[in-house]
């Protein structure tokens, strides 16, 4: 059933197929190397870790689909987390905390969107500038402090279980499905694809380009805000630079997932696969306790190889 990408579109399908192949390949490899890998527990654990990355990456996917990029996603998470955390501690009201986190994220997204649409700045630079500004503000107000100790009820969304499955995984599934539906089954999604593929055409075909771009950046902001909440709940504490370490991995996840930096091509499922690949690699390296010095190297190689493999296999299938 084609909720995910356009499964009738053979290109997108094959692209996904080959990426899945990479995932399976890694899994098989790991399960040979360590019996600890292929256990329900560990797989759930991998999924839960991937879900945090995916939350950030899902919004980013939309942005990259429009041939843009959002470097401020990590800084956004940091700021939203700190703000939401402070509110949570101050008011003790979970709902209020939620609202703050999401609104903060959305506002930052909006700011990015305005920079990119109204002022026509290249998104790479606009969001890069935003990154520094957000960090500055966060550092200023946090002054090196950390906030911690949130209510059990709030921490459900990060560390809780439903029917023996961690809550973040449900969130990941929710975002995956709703995201895919949004892209495939609403005219917004279709317009976003078109506008990524060729903004001029999109505009002349009656796509309200500015509005759609704003929407995309706001959504990206919102997912960042939500991610920040899950971080808070999972870690039960926050500091200014939380999430910064995940910016590049999130972007990598989207790109490994087959979304093109030039826009117009890509799917949510692809991004999920990308996130899985990265998480699996880290998980594997910890399980096999590979020397810390080499971990960046392995990740780097995997990034290149996974893209390359996909490319080779696809060339084969074309010719």
């Amino acid at each position: 059933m084609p909720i995910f990408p356009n499964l009738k579109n053979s290109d997108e399908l094959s692209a996904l197929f080959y990426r899945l192949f990479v995932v399976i390949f890694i899994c098989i490899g790991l399960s040979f190397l360590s019996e600890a890998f292929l256990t329900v527990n560990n797989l759930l654990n991998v999924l839960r870790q991937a879900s945090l990355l995916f939350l950030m990456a899902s919004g980013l996917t939309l942005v990259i689909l429009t041939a843009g990029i959002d470097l401020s996603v990590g800084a956004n998470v940091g700021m939203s987390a700190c703000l939401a955390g402070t509110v949570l501690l101050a008011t003790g009201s979970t709902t209020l905390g939620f609202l703050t986190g999401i609104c903060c994220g959305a506002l930052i997204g909006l700011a990015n969107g305005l920079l990119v649409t109204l002022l026509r700045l290249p998104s790479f630079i606009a969001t890069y500038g935003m990154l520094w500004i957000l960090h500055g503000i966060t550092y200023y107000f946090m002054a090196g402090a950390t906030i911690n100790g949130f209510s059990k009820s709030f921490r459900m969304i990060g560390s809780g279980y439903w029917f023996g499955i961690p809550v973040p995984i449900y969130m990941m599934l929710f975002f995956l499905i709703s995201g895919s539906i949004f892209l495939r089954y609403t005219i917004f999604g279709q317009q976003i694809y078109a506008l990524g593929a060729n903004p001029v055409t999109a505009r002349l075909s009656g796509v309200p380009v500015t509005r759609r771009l704003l929407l995309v950046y706001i959504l990206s902001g919102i997912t960042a805000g939500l991610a920040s909440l899950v971080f808070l709940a999972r870690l039960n504490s926050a500091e200014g630079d939380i999430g910064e370490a995940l910016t590049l991995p999130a972007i990598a996840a989207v790109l490994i997932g087959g979304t093109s930096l030039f826009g117009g091509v890509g799917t949510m499922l692809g991004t999920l696969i990308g996130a899985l690949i990265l998480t699996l690699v880290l998980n594997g390296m910890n399980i096999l306790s590979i020397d810390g010095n080499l971990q960046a190297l392995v990740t780097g190689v995997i990034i290149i190889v996974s893209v390359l493999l996909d490319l080779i296999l696809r060339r084969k299938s074309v010719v």
Partner: protein
Amino acid sequence: MKPILELKNISKNFPGIKALDQVSFSIIPGEVHMLLGENGAGKSTLMKILCGAYQADAGELYYQGEQIEIHSPSDAKKFGIAVIFQEFSLVPYLNIAQNIFLGREFSGWIPGTIDHSKMHAEARRLLDSLSVEYDTHTLVHTLGVAQQQMVEIAKALSQNAKILVMDEPTAALSDRETTLLFEMIHKLKAQGVAIVYISHRMAEVFSMGDRISVLRDGQYVGSADPQKTTPDELVQMMVGRTVDMVYQKNFVSKPGAIALRVENLCSSNGIRDIHLEVRCGEIVGLAGLVGSGRTEVARAIFGADPVTSGRVEVFGNDRVGEPFHSVELGLSLIPENRKSEGLALIRTVEENIVLAGLKKLFPSNWIRLSRSEQVANDLITRLRIATPSGKRPALVLSGGNQQKIVIGKWLSTESKIFIFDEPTRGIDVGSKSEIFSLIYKLVQDGAAVLLISSELSEIVRVCDRVYVMREGTISGELSGDLINEANVLKLGMADV
């Protein structure tokens, strides 16, 4: 006179299609060899083989009698083959001189360095010979389409080639530049250059051609002598079936209510106080030289360029703001440049077709795949778009079919006003007639059509009324019997 270059049984296959099948073809110094054929007939493939971009799968090439092989563009250069491509091969942020001599820069005193002054001098000389006077230091991205085409031509000439291949060189040119080009071609002929000239404009074919060859579906159909043949015969050779002559219009249009009214419209893109109105059920032409502001008018009406003053009325209500308002009002624009403005090339045919209609088709904002698929397939069959399936990306189709997609895009919105900007530029006769019969169909169903075209014959044959533009404003309106090429030209030319 023996041929300078001969192609024997050239074949070229791409996955799926037989682009060229056993094509033989000879080029004789000092003659203009017209190459005709519908888009996708294999003309461009043949050219690409000549200039070394592709290699033939089978067949031989003979250069002045002895067999040769062209593996790369540089080989082609060795044999003095130069090509003027249809889609521009210029580098936007290099200046004219650098573009003309790209890959053949004059070395300075240190190896690897460039002798700028010499390059500009040479470029100057070339441009003068074409009697166009742009500064050779201007970056080409600041030039207009026609100017860029002239640079293209200069670039080809600069290689002082023995064999010159031109693909639709006049497609983007105004009449003045066209005449300049033709003079140049005559000069070259005199110098004994062999010229292969690809065109869809019958007038050119007959005025310039010494010999005519026709390709169809990758096969060599035959040659003809311009003195002894007629347009209809050629068209028949190209299309392979008898088409009633392209523009023939077998109905009388009966203008109805005013659909589009434009009152002293001015825009930052350079047009000033434009007045025009288009009624339902009529075809109104917008003629004028290239650069007289026709496209700009279309864009301003559609809201693609900002309107500084004046107003546009669509069925009585004002059109304001971005294009998407226009679309909601039932206005539609088939832009001049289909690849960069009409299509999202990497998306599928289906997605392109439904793009403009999304809002109309799915007012709930929720897409029913089955519906969009059905709409797309209907249009694909109705417009006879040649594609294996709606799921193929648009970029694999030929120009004519792509143009049909762009039109289909607007048929899926039940829009009532169509602005066609050069709908037949670089399109083969077959698709041309199809597109026109389509336009006629629309009009008979009560749509209003504003047609922009550089081909006077088109304007004259098709339109019920014609507005002629000059220097950014409308210089006159013609209707009824007054519509003839002479009048249109008179109004279009600056006063003599």
